[in-house]
């Protein structure tokens, strides 16, 4: 006599009963209390067979292995840098993962990355204790110069990128900006003019506000079309 109470893709809040009965199992963001399965976070319900999940709609970034993120250099020690990637703890980038160069003993680490600089980096490992290791050894990873960075909710980054990057290439094409969306919700934009950067920012903000609606790519397409015409005038 089990009964599902929520539908697929419905907004649920902490304490909502998702289902009654023992035929369902609590997945991510849910727990069992007596016969009921209860949501423990604000999110969208996801029913995969017998398992009930709640995918977060809000909240800070939770790092995962192989995520490419934008980080700020916060501190350094003798052999590593500490990087803010938007999580509760700072990530560490060790010297051997930072560069292939031979670094002579006693030379200054800030020749490579100085405090306050911004890097595009990849998460190579996340431990249970919350230690995050970073690496710069992959194609495309580098220090970011000029341009601007905006922050949106990390859970909406997949929408900014789109299927096979469809959304982000649309914005790149229409605005002529180079854009990189880090998995941690930070997006780097560099365009030929401040107007172009502004347009790209507005488009991304539009995605952020309407992230889970259908036909989003078309909406963004129309938005960009309209405003590029205005810019050319």
């Amino acid at each position, binding site marked *: 006599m089990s009964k599902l109470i929520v539908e697929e*893709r419905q*907004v649920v*809040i*902490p*304490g909502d*009963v998702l289902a009654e009965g023992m035929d369902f199992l609590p997945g991510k*963001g849910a*727990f069992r*209390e007596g016969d009921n399965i*209860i949501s*423990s*976070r*604000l*999110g*969208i319900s996801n029913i995969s067979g017998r398992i009930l999940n709640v995918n*977060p*709609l*809000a*909240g*800070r970034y939770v790092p995962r292995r192989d995520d490419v993120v934008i980080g700020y250099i916060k501190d350094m020690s003798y052999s590593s840098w500490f990087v803010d990637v938007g999580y*509760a*703890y*700072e990530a560490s980038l060790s010297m051997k993962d930072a560069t292939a160069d031979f670094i002579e003993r006693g030379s200054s680490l800030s020749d490579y990355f100085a405090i306050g600089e911004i890097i595009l980096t990849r998460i190579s490992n996340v431990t249970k*204790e*919350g230690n995050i290791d970073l690496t710069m050894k992959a194609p495309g990873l580098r220090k970011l110069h000029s341009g601007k960075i905006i922050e949106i909710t990390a859970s909406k980054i997949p929408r900014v990128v789109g299927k096979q990057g469809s959304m982000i290439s649309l914005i790149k094409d229409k605005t002529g900006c180079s854009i990189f969306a880090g998995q941690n919700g930070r997006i780097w934009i560099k365009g030929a003019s401040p107007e172009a950067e502004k347009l790209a920012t507005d488009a991304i903000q539009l995605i952020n*506000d*309407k*992230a*889970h*609606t*259908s*036909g989003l790519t078309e909406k963004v397409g129309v938005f960009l079309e309209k405003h590029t015409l205005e810019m050319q005038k």
Partner: protein
Amino acid sequence: MKYTKRLDGRKFDELRPMKAEVGVVKNAVGSARFQIGKTVAIAAVYGPKDLFPKFLQKPQNALLRCYYNMMAFSGSGERVRPGANRRSKEISMVIEKAFEPVLDLSEFPKAVVDVYIELIQTDAGTRCAGICAASLALADAGFDMKDLVCAVSCGLVGDQVVVDLDKTEEDFEGGAVDIPIAMLPRTGEITLLQLDGEISKDDLKKAIEAGKEACQKIYEIQKAALRAKYAQEVVA
């Protein structure tokens, strides 16, 4: 002393008009405003982030830190001295305790989550409005919670059990007992219960029951506010 009719004309179990809105502080991880009558609370959540000094860190959990504050201009004309005082420190502490049973911060050991609660306008029931706002803000910040927390004051004015006392009732010349109560709406568990005054056992039971019923009404407002913010993102 008899209290036959409420000073503002409400029924004895009637709450003041309520309003709630989620996401009012854009720079915060989560935020909310909760208004009940003339009492307005704004809560903003920041973190999890590094916690210093180090001896405050909890090895298996994040620390929840609440800051309750009444703004200088919030009261009835008397200027509230800014900054922490004995009263606000105690209220901050009981608010922290009110969230302890629902909030799961074990994902963030050694870190801290800060909740700032500002009362911009006050007319009694501030800690309750603060808890209601903080509960919404924490949910908005995406933390794991077993339930929302609803809070209201109940008590005795003269000889009558009432819910949601306003300032004029708290100061009723025939005597008043103010009982702030915070509850988990699904299970009915009480996470905060304070009492200021003298009350008989029977009246206390009646007051708590009335408070619990009132909490369910607040819960409906809270749920609607959270859904209102997120539903528009989801529905086409």
